[in-house]
């Protein structure tokens, strides 16, 4: 299969500390890929390197044959990679609808922001997505009135509105209850019909239910990669992560 995102020999270092160390992997179209691993394994840094937030020391990330190192963060968004951060970051001084409005616009130039109104189909898409993420009724309230889970969904909705080809989600279900977690999982499945997803997550039950493939990171390097079943039965993975995570021997 062709991978849409290819990571080759990627190393990211902070003052000599290698947060990501010689990582090689490829993400296939339509996959829901999970990056798991103990704290400090380099999962978030890996996402940061993909979306241009940190510059790699060596190696490269290619997305549909494009070398991402040549693009600024906002340009990477415009070639089709959306990023959700760990802490929900939505704009609290405007309504849910207006949050979506900023995301749905395709022409993000100064001129367009000054003079162009939303097109009808863009308004329709906002409403569609609001229904999908279950926030249609709350579209005129500000995110201050939303629960933690709803804020996460709003941010995912904003990513959806950008129509990315690849979505990077950093701990989307952290702090959610079981019901909310499952709802998020179903949402991801729905999204994955048109979009490839990379998720960083600690919740192993969530990983088991929704991952198509899992990459285990440890101290910046890839420890194992494969199906959830394979990874769970890898003794090294159990030693450094699953065993400690208290999932088996809690």
């Amino acid at each position: 299969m062709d991978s849409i995102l290819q990571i080759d020999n990627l190393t990211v270092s902070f003052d000599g500390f290698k947060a990501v160390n010689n990582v090689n992997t490829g993400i296939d179209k339509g996959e829901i890929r999970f990056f798991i691993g103990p704290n400090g394994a380099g999962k978030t840094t890996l996402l940061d390197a993909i979306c241009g937030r940190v510059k790699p020391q060596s190696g490269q990330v290619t997305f549909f044959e494009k070398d991402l190192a040549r693009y600024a963060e906002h340009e990477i968004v415009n070639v089709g990679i959306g990023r959700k951060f760990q802490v929900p970051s939505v704009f609290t001084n405007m309504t849910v609808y207006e949050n979506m409005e900023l995301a749905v616009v395709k022409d993000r130039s100064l001129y367009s922001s000054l003079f162009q109104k939303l097109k009808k189909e863009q308004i329709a898409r906002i409403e569609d997505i609001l229904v999908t993420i279950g926030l249609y009724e709350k579209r005129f309230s500000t995110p201050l009135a939303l629960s933690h889970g709803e804020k996460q969904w709003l941010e995912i909705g904003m990513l959806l509105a950008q129509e990315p080809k690849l979505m990077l989600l950093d701990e989307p279900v952290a702090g959610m209850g079981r019901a909310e977690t499952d709802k998020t999982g179903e949402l991801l499945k729905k999204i994955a019909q048109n979009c490839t997803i990379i998720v960083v997550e600690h919740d192993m039950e969530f990983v088991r239910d929704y991952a198509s493939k899992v990459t285990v990171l440890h101290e910046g390097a890839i420890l194992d990669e494969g199906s959830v079943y394979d990874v769970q039965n890898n003794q090294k993975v159990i030693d450094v992560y699953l065993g400690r995570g208290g999932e088996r021997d809690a």
Partner: protein
Amino acid sequence: MFQVRDSRFGVRSLVKSKEKFVFVLIIVVLALAPLFISDFRVNLLGKFIAYAILAIGLDLIWGYTGILSLGHGVYFGLGAYCMAMYLKLEAAHGKLPDFMSWSGLERLPWFWRPFSQGFFALAMAMLIPTLLAFFIGFLTFKNRIRGVYFSILSQALSIIFVVLFVGQQAYTGGTNGLTNYKSILGFSLSNASTKLFLYYISIALLVLAFGFCSFLVKQRIGRILVAIRDGENRVRFSGYNPTTYKIFVYCLSAALAGLAGAIYVPQVGIISPAEMGIVPSIEMIIWVAIGGRGTLIGAVIGAILVNALKSGISESFPDVWSYFIGFAFIVIVLFMPNGIVGLVKNIAGRFGWIKSKGGGRYGFDIAN
């Protein structure tokens, strides 16, 4: 689908139309003021209106975008100097302006020459601040210098320009600045009718500035600016380049400051480097803070009110003013983070006159 848009603008326009109503009220009062108060007071009011134009621009960059510039006196001063150069040349009647002969210059410097045209001077009064703001903005915002670091840089800019203008006495009039104007476009500046005309021009410019900026913040860019203030990173990862927007709003606020300077000078009759310094620049911030940042009407109210109070208080108790403004600023920071407009909205919201969006808009974290 159309319901969506209607109800969306329902809540918004209720608040906005109130602001527009208040603005119209202010303009009517200002326009009728010459009937009731002395020429001297009208002249002062004209000066405050110039300040209000500047405050609108400052509010765009600080209140909306969250960039605290402590050097807007420079842009105001540059605009004022451009206009003053024209007035000075007109007063000299083709001869060398007085201060140049005192400083030993024999010929008019080349960059002074085109300023004998009034409209060139007016255009430059906006263009030069815009270009400087573009240059500074490009270097700082592109390199992601933000928050207090930008504020400190903007203060340094102010110091540099004061030193420069004081030092280049032969070209700028030094510490004394430029003064002793006679006429503008042939009309004597000591005539009451010319003064009144200038006063109404200021009001017209204030209406234009307010109208343009209200249009601006109603467009999507208004929400993008607020988004940059509240979460620049999210904006960047939504595919916008915040640098472009920041440079744009910085240039726009500089142009408005320059325009304010240009209409200030013929009414006040003097511009000196002191007006470009850090203290006046910080006072400008205080106008916006007291009026209520993040609302254009707040900037207008703040600029006019604070300056009216200032001249009132300094007339009777000249020493008290700086204590008063300092105290007022502390009270605002502690108890009314959204200024007068915020206070009024709060009260109105409590009585159910307007739909309040719940709580304050944001706390008073000066540089985000």
